[in-house]
């Protein structure tokens, strides 16, 4: 399959990279750009471990082709620095093995940007797209709500 060079806008930088037309964004991020924070958990959109932020919205990077991301602003977990939601995850023990954590944080981060005053129903609608197998979700709920309260 022919390769093509595209430029992805990732974490505030333009990153030229060579991909196949059928490469997913997840594959390009991990395999081409060394951004291994986004995790492969199912490769078909079921688990959310690969969630990134595309133009402000959470996106499962295994469900998007790399070529589709051209011209869009992509933020991965590596693009977050000491954000309130990251701090809250640490404080509330909202992770254990840590594998779903980058995807969960990116989803929570997008949620907080889009709906800073989200009610329980909205939080549930957003966060039920990710699976955490270690925690009870109570810890994640506490982390999100702590950020909403501005703690």
């Amino acid at each position, binding site marked *: 399959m022919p390769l093509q060079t595209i430029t992805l806008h990732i974490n505030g930088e333009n990153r030229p990279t060579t991909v196949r037309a059928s490469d997913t964004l997840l594959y390009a991020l991990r*395999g081409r750009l060394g951004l291994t924070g986004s995790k492969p*958990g199912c490769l078909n959109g079921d688990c959310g471990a690969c969630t990134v932020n595309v133009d402000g919205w959470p996106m499962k990077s295994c469900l998007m082709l790399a070529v589709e991301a051209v011209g869009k602003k992509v933020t991965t977990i590596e693009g977050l620095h000491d954000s309130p939601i990251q701090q809250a995850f640490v404080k509330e023990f909202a992770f254990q093995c840590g594998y779903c*954590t980058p995807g969960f944080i990116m989803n929570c981060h997008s949620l907080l940007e889009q709906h800073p005053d989200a009610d329980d129903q909205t939080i549930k609608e957003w966060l039920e797209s990710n699976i955490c197998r270690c925690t009870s979700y109570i810890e994640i709920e506490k982390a999100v709500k702590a950020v909403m309260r501005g703690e």
Partner: protein
Amino acid sequence: MEVIGRSVIRKEAADKVTGRAKYTDDFESVQMLSGKMVISPYGHAKIVNIDTANAWKVPGVRAIIAGKRYPLTGETIRDRPPIAVDKVRYHGEPVALVVADTPAQAKTAADLINVQYELLPVVNSPTEAFQEGAPLVHERLGEYKKEADSYPVPGTNIATHTKIRKGQMEKGWAESETVVEASFSFAPSDHAAMETRCATAEIFPDGKIIIMTASQAPFMAKRLIADYFGEDMGKIIVHTPLVGGAYGGKAAVQLEVLAYLASKEVGGRPVKIFNTREEDILTSPCHIGLDATVKLGADRNGMIKAAEIRFWWDGGAYSDKAIDVSRSGAVDCTGPYNIENVWCDSYCMYTNHPYASPFRGYSHSELSFVIERTMDILAQKLNIDPLELRYINAIKPGDTTPTRVKLTRSNVGDLRKCIEKVRELIKWDEGAIKEVNERIIRVKGVSCSWKTSTIDANAPSGAILTFNRDGSINLMSGVIEIGTGTKTILAQILAEKLKMDVDRIHVRMEVDTQTTPEHWKTVASRGTYMAGRAVLQAADDVIRQLKEVASCVLRAPEEDLVVADSRVFLRDDPSIGLDFKDIVYGYQYPNGNSIGGQIIGTGKFILRHITHLDPETGEGKPGPEWAPAAYGVEIEFDKRDYTYRLIKACTVLDIGKVMNEKAALGQVMGAMSMGLAFAGRETFYFDELGRVLNPQLRTYRPLRYGENPEYLVGFVETPHLDSPYGARGGGEHGLMGMPGALGNALSLAAGVPLNCLPLIPEFIWRAKKTFK
């Protein structure tokens, strides 16, 4: 205590919330090749032909392994070809392995391999497997190499049989005025760790074999590869970085072997094998299934006099760890109750299902479901409050276990206290059923459990402490950070012992089998106990060395010295002393003379007085201590369509000592979440060909955000005297009682005994229809 008990922030926290934490698949190099399996689409079939001609035409293909006979593998019985030959025994079994330059090429080639099968009769449950004349999964069972403490029965599908014979059954039944009997069944399911299993291997010209694997057992991978293939053990180095969830599923050794064979096939170049989710569910070992019958007899006061228990474990196509799991189920078969007369037959059965590895609780969530359901059935027949029945029969110091271990306060804890606390937390005395409206009722169910850890009697753990020149300490232990936070707990244990700042203790997260002291396997809630003891011994070693140097410099006897706050000083005048940084790399006098040298602390631990079990009676000491727990679940049940909502789930665990409060709560609540999913929805659906119909996370559904109940957790702290600061295991127990408590709540709500899992509305509907 200063550090123990505090919610110390986990050592790897910053890495995990920034995406910088590295797991096995995150390590990649340009020359690394990609391995891809071809897996069996059937449960049981003869391999007639494998055609690889088209696959070889794909660019980038370096090797294709198919039909090659390798030594048989398997931890207890060597019954498993790494890649199937002659026949396949489960859906998902590796049949061929392609190695290519890229994952896409390997996948393309694997898809072009044409395997011809001839279907064989399928053994689709352990009960079927046990029938006389059942098709044999292993025709040559008698010829396999095996460990001494497994008892396969050639000519049958029995991989091993563990017997418990305690007391006199006739006497027990004679004393029983009320007898109940029930049968139970559930199919295998999955661990569904978010990180699928992954392994890489590279073989160097000098014979060095470097493996990296997402594993709970890198030291076992090293031993087994040496043993299976006659490799030089010292040349095998297994690395394990952080692991993305394990729950027992990564205690088995499988992909490491395939990666090793693949690398060998391509002249030692590095090869990675990464499970897709479907492969992780099908091909790699799963959570064991079980068929069981339980018969309990009690006198008129409700005291249980006899128990007759039969387990048929669904070990799947290969016995691997299932043999140990079935033995572990036998040793604690009664649940946490004092019963003098016990008969248990625990059979590990071969079937044509994916084979089993340990699952969080190691047979105890499974056996707890069948025992706790029977307890409720008994309570109903006796007309005794089910929590009271548990309370009066609760195991206690002075009683003996099914394998006749004499119990003490230290080794069994205080179940009655757990029950009392659950009674309060779930407001049991307000009643088990409450009507919300004409459709909806709120219902509570309770259960108990206990667990010892039946790990190898000679399983080791070790710890090494080195210093940095600023006086801070590096802690090396073979415990894998699988998510439990154990390595942070070890740092807390060390900080408490040395009375120093826990931030000045640096924990090495990655394990490699060449330089990290062995911790047998990171399983069985034994990290804190065993590695903790090793760390305490290493700390004593360090204290001794620090005092030796300080005693010389300070011209004071060692007995007068105290170690605290990263200093060694005189107990009656703390101002006279030395900082760690001035002595841990030797002390230098003003004229340049130096004494001492680098301080390195070492510690080790091995369990005491564990024995093999008597093959005829089961008598023996299987583990060091039991942690008991009591549980409650509250649901809202819709009488019209049998759907239900989880409202509350409660665990009270005798944890000995809470080491890190938030971490302990997280372990218990997370385990409850997994237990509720196992009880309420997770199972493999098999068709008549033994195929798993739901190997994806959209059809195999763990709990998601918002589906969780409110969690109530209570701790009882009865110290286990041999363990650091009295701690008992706590990583598994939250799970173990959930199936029983949920099953009891739903059985009460539906008015029919629900003795199968998972407890989905359709099953309840069927049970209602058949139970008249």
